[in-house]
């Protein structure tokens, strides 16, 4: 009964999304304010019914209702309760339900926080969001109903959640990622509403900025969590694989990062407005493309399960409609946003443009690398090629290093133009400091770095030095009035530096060994000794394990590591569970390979310095992006807003804040 109610709730939400779209878009077209106001009610209604539908599925999982096909496929009576909840989004149907719930939350947030936007603009934005949600809900109901029953013969027990997903990282990773994907629908809807209502001044850029920041922060966290999960759960010791599914989440992130920066120029200076509009459309389009890639199975191997042709075709048609429609609208109306704002060569505008150029080229590299194998296959009628990490690394790394170099200069240059001589002096001082620091760090590490590694170290410290210097300068000039938006920008940029340092140093200094160990044997690597005590049997709630015992001595610090090879009872699948001793400066990573003859084991031992910094940097970036939204400026602007006026941009509190 409960699943049927959930199904009904989703159907009602679909009806409301249709109503909301019609009320918002048609109401705004006809200028009927009662209709436009009603669109917000339709949004709240959708959220209510999505929440009910989602709760119904959670309930079905918690009470082990295996007559629901989706529960039977993805849960098991032995599964611990927290995984029963996360199993709701462990596979296609449920993750789509989560997606629409998150969409409902974003829409409601827009309806709740945007009371001071012009009614027509708000109604159009909500109408576009309702239209998108209607598409997702139709997809859910027509191709991927999670409430379908297995009647009359329900199985006695479920097939269990994929053991790879029975993990904390996978409880939180999808909701974060979806919050980011779906959040980008808000700037998309704002851009479409701006085009529809011909409101192409810099006001829409100001309204879009906080939403873009929050969505981007979620996306950053989601990607970082995915990377962290791959690192400790997949048992390979890597943290990024340029896998199509990863790329699918990385492309919208690159576009959203470009959008953040471009929005700053559009808001402050009215520059690059049509470009910014295009980026807003692109970022969400790439989210949809990512959903298509992941959900249609088009880029995964033939071994991907549950590849359903109708799903892929549906998403493709939806993509054509939404993205094609938005880009056609941009083609027709975008010209009105064309602006020629003058600025000098050494101006913040130039550096934001450079940032966008680098990010978009990086995006093109990832897009090409992801789609080229598919295009090749399409062109040759079935031949396969694969594009691997070396290709991506070769193009992506130099782009990011140039971006890091430019990022150091960016905060120093003002809008319009800068005093070159003073700028040069400051930069020289910062360069000296960062070079000295890099030398010091290099000596402390006591290892020789490659040219690229040393360059990355220098550039990471370069960003730290320039951000620090700029902060000091502001404190000297402005006292305590440094706005939160500035702090947010600085933190995010420092986060980028921290991630860059993490990537470079992990890449340079990691030690990875596959060794054969007999019980009692000791292996020493990079000053850390591993004594293999042997393998014992162990058991968990829904698995049995072979647990390797290692006594580790890390320069006088003793610890025990116990990697496992688990065999899950319900599916019989075997999982490698690495044991990791995490540290700010060094991770010690042991995973159990195959059992060899004579009681020996193949063991994989990694020592990964600074690997945590990669995710720590992402945390800083996400925190910085969120902090900027809390700036008083946005609240004050919301209060003082007057449509079409740009007079607020020059106020001192907001001046000089780029992100």
């Amino acid at each position, binding site marked *: 009964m409960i699943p049927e109610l959930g199904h009904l709730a989703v159907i009602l939400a679909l009806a409301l999304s249709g109503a909301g779209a019609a009320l918002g878009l048609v109401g705004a077209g006809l200028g009927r304010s009662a209709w436009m106001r009603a669109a917000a009610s339709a949004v709240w209604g959708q959220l209510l019914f999505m929440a009910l539908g989602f709760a119904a599925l959670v309930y079905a999982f918690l009470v082990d209702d295996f007559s629901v096909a989706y529960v039977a496929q993805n849960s098991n009576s032995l599964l611990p309760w927290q995984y029963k909840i996360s199993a709701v989004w462990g596979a296609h149907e449920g993750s789509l339900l989560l997606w629409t719930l998150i969409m409902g939350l974003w829409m409601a947030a827009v309806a709740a926080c945007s009371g001071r936007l012009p009614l027509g603009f708000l109604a159009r934005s909500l109408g576009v969001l309702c239209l998108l949600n209607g598409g997702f809900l139709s997809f859910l109901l027509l191709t991927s109903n999670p409430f379908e029953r297995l009647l009359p013969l329900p199985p006695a027990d479920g097939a269990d959640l994929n053991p790879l997903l029975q993990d904390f990282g996978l409880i939180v990773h999808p909701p974060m990622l979806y919050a980011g994907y779906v959040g980008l629908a808000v700037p998309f809807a704002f851009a479409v509403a701006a085009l529809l209502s011909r409101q192409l001044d810099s006001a829409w850029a100001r309204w879009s900025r906080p939403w873009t920041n929050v969505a981007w922060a979620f996306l950053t966290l989601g990607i970082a969590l995915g990377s962290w999960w791959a690192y400790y759960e997949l048992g390979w010791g890597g943290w990024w694989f340029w896998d199509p599914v990863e790329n699918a989440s990385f492309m919208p992130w690159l576009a959203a990062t470009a959008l953040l920066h471009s929005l700053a120029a559009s808001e402050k200076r009215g520059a690059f407005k*049509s470009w910014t509009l*295009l980026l807003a*459309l*692109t970022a969400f*389009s790439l989210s949809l*493309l990512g959903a*298509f890639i992941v959900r*249609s*199975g*088009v*880029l995964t*191997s*033939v*071994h991907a399960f549950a*590849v359903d*042709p109708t799903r*892929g*075709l549906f998403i*493709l048609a939806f*993509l*054509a409609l939404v*993205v*094609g429609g938005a*880009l*056609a609208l*941009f*083609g*027709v109306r*975008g*010209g009105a946003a*064309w602006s020629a704002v003058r600025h000098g060569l050494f101006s913040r505008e130039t550096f934001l443009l450079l940032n966008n150029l680098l990010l978009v080229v990086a995006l093109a590299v990832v897009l090409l690398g992801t*789609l080229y194998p*598919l*295009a090749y*296959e*399409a062109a040759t*009628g*079935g*031949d*396969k090629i694969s594009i691997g990490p070396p290709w991506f690394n070769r193009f992506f790394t130099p782009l990011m290093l140039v971006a890091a170099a430019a990022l150091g200069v960016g905060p120093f240059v003002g809008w319009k133009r800068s005093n070159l001589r003073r700028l040069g002096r400051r930069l020289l001082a910062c360069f000296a400091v960062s070079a000295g620091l890099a030398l010091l760090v290099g000596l402390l590490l006591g290892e020789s770095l490659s040219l690229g590694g040393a360059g990355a170290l220098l550039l990471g410290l370069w960003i730290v030095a320039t951000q620090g210097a700029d902060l000091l300068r502001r404190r000297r000039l402005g006292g305590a009035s440094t706005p939160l938006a500035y702090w947010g920008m600085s933190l995010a940029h420092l986060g980028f530096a921290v991630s860059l340092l993490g990537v470079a140093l992990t890449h340079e200094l990691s030690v990875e060994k596959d060794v054969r160990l007999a019980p009692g044997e000791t292996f020493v690597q990079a000053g850390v000794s591993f004594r293999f005590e042997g393998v014992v049997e162990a058991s968990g709630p829904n698995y049995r394990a072979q647990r390797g015992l290692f006594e580790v001595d890390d320069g006088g610090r003793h610890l025990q590591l116990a990697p496992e090879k688990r065999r899950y009872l319900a*599916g*019989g*699948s075997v999982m490698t569970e690495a044991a990791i001793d995490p540290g700010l400066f060094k991770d010690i990573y042991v995973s159990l390979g195959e059992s060899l003859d004579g009681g020996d084991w193949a063991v994989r031992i990694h020592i990964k310095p600074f690997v945590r910094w990669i995710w720590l940097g992402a945390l800083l970036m996400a925190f910085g992006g969120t902090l900027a939204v809390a700036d008083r400026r946005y609240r004050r602007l919301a209060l003082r807003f007057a449509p079409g006026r740009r007079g607020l941009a020059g106020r001192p509190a907001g001046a000089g804040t780029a992100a």
Partner: protein
Amino acid sequence: MRPALFAPLALFAVVLAIGYIGFQLEDPQRLPSALLGKPFPAFAAPRLDGGSGALVRREDLLGSPVLVNVWATWCPTCRAEHDELLRIHAAAPTLRIIGVNYKDDAAKARRWLRAYGDPYEFNLVDLDGALGVELGVYGAPETFLLNPEGEVVFKQVGAVTSDIWRQELAPRLAAMGMRVDDGAELPEVGAAPPSAALEADVPA
């Protein structure tokens, strides 16, 4: 109106077209025949018995017809198929039968060959299924017949039975000029095959 503003739309149309065509290609219904008439993919894999230690490559399969059989010890259908392979080996001793031991345990595979007889010239080890992905294998057993130029002329998903041999394999081999003695007796090895369903299994 500026024509340049329609460039993103045009670019998107191209991406969409690629997605559409690619999607048609990946239609699982079409895949069983994906390699038919195409060269067997290039690969490099170690031998189950070690051989000379060198990896086996696609070039090693050229020059005469080859039957490539994907199998595993965890696959009951492979057990049912095994005796037919032995019979084929007896009927056409000049036909090279190369096994691909798919996602399996090497020790178990060697035991299996000792216990049930060995129709293979040698076996390739595909521990992680990477070669299987290249071949578009759904599960085991699957069998490919290659001509001397190394092109796939026939593919069987599921067990090779005596009917498949008579109707599909033997005529193609005869057309390639191979002598096939169809009166060969089934050698006495192992136990009788279990009456497993003759379709492909998927690895556990």
